[in-house]
């Protein structure tokens, strides 16, 4: 599992414990990864603003990618207040990758 956010590496490092995540967590401060995927939110910038803040945010998106790099499934929120719940993601993984229970 891989996560992408606009946080600085040190912030991610500090917060990792809180989420108990074992994922590789990437810092995408300049939105390079977000833009490569076309996932920069073009709507209102609803994050904190200021010199030290990211200039935009990604649209919350979960992608399931096959071993050969093809997107098998994705889930995207229409508004940032909704997220893909764990049950939705697990169901997709079971369906497409034949893993987990």
């Amino acid at each position, binding site marked *: 599992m891989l996560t992408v956010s606009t946080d600085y590496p040190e912030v991610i490092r500090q917060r990792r414990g809180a989420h108990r995540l074992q994922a590789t967590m990437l810092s995408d401060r300049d939105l390079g990864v977000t833009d490569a995927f076309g996932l920069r939110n073009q709507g209102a910038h609803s994050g904190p603003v200021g010199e030290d803040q990211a200039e935009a945010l990604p*649209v919350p998106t979960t992608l399931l990618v096959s071993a050969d790099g093809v997107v098998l499934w994705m889930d995207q929120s229409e508004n940032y207040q909704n997220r893909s719940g764990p049950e939705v993601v697990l169901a997709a993984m079971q369906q497409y990758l034949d893993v987990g229970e």
Partner: protein
Amino acid sequence: MGMKETRKTVGTTLGLLAPVVAIATFLFWFYTNNSVGIPENRGVFIAVFVIAIVMAVASFIVGTRWFGGVAAVIGIIPAAFMLFTVSISKQVVAEDAIKVGDTIPYFAALDDQGERFTSDALAGTPVLIKFFRAHW
């Protein structure tokens, strides 16, 4: 108790109730949010925040004692803030955004240890990639 006093009591009660309704809903919202449970249809939340604002405004129209007025203003703040966040929450991606069936692009970034990570490391293994807004 005269008519005027009765009105003031009604107004003050409305003013005092507004922040109770607004703050309780505000807290419930974040409690729900924490468990990834904000419903697709946020209509009920929106309605309750609107009701809180209407109660606060009504308390001023009817007339309120000073503490009812203070409470009403305190109630308007979280309710209006939440309505504002709802109003700007619509997400729009670029026209060429990734979609099912696409091959993911090459990418590189620093991980949380400050080490450079490139998408080459993903070759040959399925992966779940999650873009999220940030840790705050």
